[in-house]
């Protein structure tokens, strides 16, 4: 009796699986037992007031901060044991992590392309310069670019290694509405077109409703709520996601599932 090949193929591991990570540093508990899972092509929003633990969580996923407990698996690779292989599947952008301003756009992309050990880095950089309409700016130093141009270069940098997981920490925070809208569309296209999983932090709730498939609302280092951003507010008796966010931010212990 013939056996289907499909039966033998193990399911692809999730792009990101975070299991119960915790971190205490600088005298306070920043993250206390966060778990999350993102599949290929999914965009997950990580929301929460300032100090909720979003950036700490992202830093732990990037290996920039060692968790006190828990595990980070990227595309089935354990970050703690297979750091280089795991990080080769990831890229990230954050407004607080600018690209070196004294290198030109092209030099920056070549530099990071080499860090990801891309086999044909020049061709890949040329592709990205073209697709992000950056060819005319290729010889301009990044420090001289406008915020919108810098965001485009940073996004081009995040795609150098064709990542399976993209971490975006408030990517539109310094952009005008039109540029932010362009950037959101680009990221949405990347997720649907390339199957790239995205973890996105933002304080813009309209943006989150528009872009994300799923959201986690953090407060005081814990996941308080999670669900579909377009239904979550109604499920918790709030008029909008923003109203729910404000309520959680003001009374985190009263509002969450984990309370």
């Amino acid at each position: 009796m013939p056996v289907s090949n499909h039966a033998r193929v193990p399911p692809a591991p999730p792009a990101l699986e975070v299991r119960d990570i915790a971190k205490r540093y600088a005298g306070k508990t920043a993250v206390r037992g966060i778990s999350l899972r993102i599949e290929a092509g999914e965009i997950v929003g990580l929301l929460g007031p300032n100090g909720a633990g979003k950036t700490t969580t992202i830093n732990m996923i990037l290996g920039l901060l060692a968790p006190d407990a828990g595990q980070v698996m990227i595309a089935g690779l354990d970050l703690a044991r297979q750091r280089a292989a795991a990080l080769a599947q990831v890229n990230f952008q954050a407004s607080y992590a600018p690209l070196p301003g004294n290198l030109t756009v092209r030099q920056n992309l070549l530099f990071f392309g080499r860090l990801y050990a891309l086999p044909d880095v020049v061709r890949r950089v040329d592709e990205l310069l073209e697709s992000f309409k950056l060819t005319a700016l290729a010889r301009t130093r990044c420090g001289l670019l406008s915020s919108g141009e810098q965001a485009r270069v940073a996004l081009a940098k995040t795609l150098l290694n064709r990542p399976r997981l993209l971490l975006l920490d408030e990517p539109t925070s310094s952009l005008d509405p039109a540029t932010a809208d362009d950037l959101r569309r680009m990221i949405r296209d990347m997720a649907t077109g390339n199957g790239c999983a995205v973890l996105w932090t933002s304080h813009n709730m309209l943006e989150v409703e528009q872009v994300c498939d799923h959201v986690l609302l953090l407060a005081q280092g814990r996941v308080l709520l999670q669900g579909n951003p377009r239904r979550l507010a109604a499920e918790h008796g709030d008029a909008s996601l923003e109203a729910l966010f404000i309520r959680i931010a003001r009374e985190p212990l009263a509002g969450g599932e984990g309370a």
Partner: protein
Amino acid sequence: MNPRRVSAIVLRQIDLMRSSPTRVVPLVAWVAIDIVLWGYITRYLGSLSAHGPDFTLTLLGAVLLWDFFGRIMQGVTTAFFEDVWSRSFLNLFASPISVSEYVAGLVATSILTSLISLLVMLLLARFAFGLSLLAFGLPAAGFLAVLFLFGIALGIFASAVVLRLGPASEWLVWPIPALLSPFAAVFYPLHVLPQWMQAVAHVLPPAYVFEGLRALAAGRGVEPGTLLLAALLALLQIALALGFFVRVFRGAIRSGLLARYSAESVA
């Protein structure tokens, strides 16, 4: 170790020098000034006593070698400071580069930049003051090798200190060669130093180099065993410095220092 990642650090430095020639000036200017200044001092001292010691070897030669060591060390630290100044640590260490690949990139960058300085010094010393590295004979290779290794060790150590204490501690790094020079006995024999300074000198590989240089100028040979000891000492110091850097880096990952690395003052 992936050579593409190591080369990224070196090629980044080349890009920086190409796009900003002012970065090349310090590689050339200070060593050129030193050679010209000490070249004339040497010439003047030589004119005072026709039958005195060979100042060209013992003074100008010492300056050339000491500046080479300084350039090696600063080659490592300056490449490291590029990441401090441009706040690149997050993007850099969120990539797959390992600490050993990063440090190898800093060392390779230092080789490139210090070779530029060495070439300028050799040309100036040869054509302006008649000092050729060939005058040292075969020991020249040993002298350069020992100073290279020690410069690398000190560069890695200094970078680790700045990683640990924050960007504002950069000022601690620049005076290190000047602080070591009295102990390294660059311009005078080791025996003129007090005992405690001699004890310090014995763990400094350059002290063996400069003793060898003076022995050469006095017509005595350089003991290969002494240079070998100095090279082994420097290799041990590289291993210790690398261990220290890795330890500081891991500590920075645990404590959150790497993620928060910004314009902080000395802690």
